[in-house]
């Protein structure tokens, strides 16, 4: 029997084995705690129920909604993709702070970028666990299936998820800088962007200055695109390309800020001190 590190894995810079190990670590945690698993299901389901009734009401009282049934439900579910995407990164990150485990992780051969990739992977897992049941729940309850959006749904999903990742990494950087004192940011920060994201109304409703802000958010382009698909049955390529470019920027900037914060944490000795 040999317990020596696998030679190939040691030589290679990137190790899928280590990435897998970190995903496994978060899955173990998720499986061990029913409140954590329930929390994944709870909010998306509550949101769908709440906004589902609102949507039903507005459909009979608003020509805006009447023109495309399910527009509010689609907006709620897509908004939750972004929120859950960000929260998925932040919660997995917080798990390490709560368990005071960073010191052990970073004396192992785990690279910071492998850790980041494991956080993003777990974010996708958490979003799927939360959103798929919620989307399926909407079908019998409100006779609306978000899957009728077709292929654009996949584009919207990915674009919002990636924006959530970018935000999650920036929040992770703030947690590395400020410790658990910044914990509430994980739950609150994304809602600051909701008004300018124009989730439930067109960007043109916003004041002019806020419209400029909105066009710097991938989410505003996604929700404009969603309405174009639902109201006009067309896929707006300009919004799609703008969202792709902005997402790339958000992800690169988010990763950069996170890695800078990680290095600063090593300068301050914070990796050993952070905890509950």
């Amino acid at each position, binding site marked *: 029997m040999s317990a020596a*590190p696998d030679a190939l894995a040691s030589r290679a810079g990137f190790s899928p084995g280590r990435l897998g*190990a970190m995903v496994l670590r978060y899955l173990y945690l998720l499986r061990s705690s029913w409140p954590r698993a329930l929390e994944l299901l709870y909010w998306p389901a509550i949101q769908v129920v709440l906004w589902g009734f609102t949507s039903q009401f507005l459909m009979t009282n608003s020509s805006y909604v009447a023109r495309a049934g399910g527009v509010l439900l689609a907006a709620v579910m897509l908004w939750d993709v972004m929120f859950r995407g960000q929260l998925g990164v932040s919660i997995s990150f917080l798990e390490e702070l709560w368990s005071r*485990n960073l010191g052990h992780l970073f*004396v192992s051969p785990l690279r910071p970028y492998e850790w980041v990739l494991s956080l993003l992977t777990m974010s996708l897992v958490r979003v799927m666990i939360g959103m798929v049941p919620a989307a399926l729940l909407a079908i019998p309850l409100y006779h609306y299936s978000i899957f009728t959006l077709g292929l654009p749904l996949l584009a919207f999903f990915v674009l919002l998820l990636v924006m959530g990742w970018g935000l999650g990494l920036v929040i992770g950087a703030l947690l590395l800088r400020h410790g658990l004192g910044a914990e509430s940011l994980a739950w609150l920060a994304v809602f600051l962007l909701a008004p300018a994201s124009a989730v439930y109304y067109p960007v043109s409703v916003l004041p002019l200055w806020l419209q400029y802000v909105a066009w710097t958010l991938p989410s505003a382009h996604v929700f404009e695109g969603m309405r174009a698909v639902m109201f006009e049955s067309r896929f707006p390529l300009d919004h799609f390309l703008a969202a792709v470019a902005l997402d790339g920027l958000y992800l690169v900037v988010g990763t950069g800020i996170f890695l800078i914060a990680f290095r600063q944490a090593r300068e*301050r*000795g914070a990796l050993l001190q952070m905890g509950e």
Partner: protein
Amino acid sequence: MSHPVIEVTAVTKRFGETLAVDAVDFAVPRGVTGALLGGNGAGKTTTLSMLLGLLLPTAGHIRIFGEDMLRHRYRVLPRMNFSSPYVDLPHRLTVRQNLTVYGRLYGLAHLGARIESLARDLQIAEFLDRQTGKLSAGQKTRVALAKALINEPELLLLDEPTASLDPDTGDWVRGYLETYQRRSGATILLASHNMNEVERLCSDVMMMRKGRIVDRGSPRQLIERYGRDTLEQVFLDIARAGERFDPREAAQ
């Protein structure tokens, strides 16, 4: 001639205005069990953290296994490990799950057999499938040791390895570390306040005070140099000396 396992040259660490480690130089040869000994705030944990790469020095150089830790730490990390009572393993994961995660982080082959073997050696088999957070302090220490030995490290860094343990468990841990060192030929460096532990385990003791290594030798050499009966008395001589500490003067 082979490199020492640890080479520290003029390493300094400042936190703002506070000088935590002050131009420290030392080397630890292969197969030696050494100790950083000193009071609270002497710089022991800061020095260990820099050796591990968790903390970046303000100045100076650290080489482990001949590799520069600032540039090539990932070449070195698979060959070393660490344990501290102040860094936890995730509480909600079982012992086996924690060891599985860390075994995979180190890219180990035959991981299941390795965990079983460690479980036998460290007497943790009976609670392998229990949540780590539900274990007693002594059990947690043995689990932390299992994590620290999962990759059979050639260099083991330990921060207060028997802190908060009862004498029986502490004695057991020290015995296990002696066995591991003899069997593997590993180099061990520990930071400790426990004089009995250091006298028993270590052949090379570096006395730290205010961020500097103020004296060094085997426990017997230090005891003789200071004309004392125990290492604890030497520790107190150094800890209670005035601002202008001179080891030669203190030894007289």
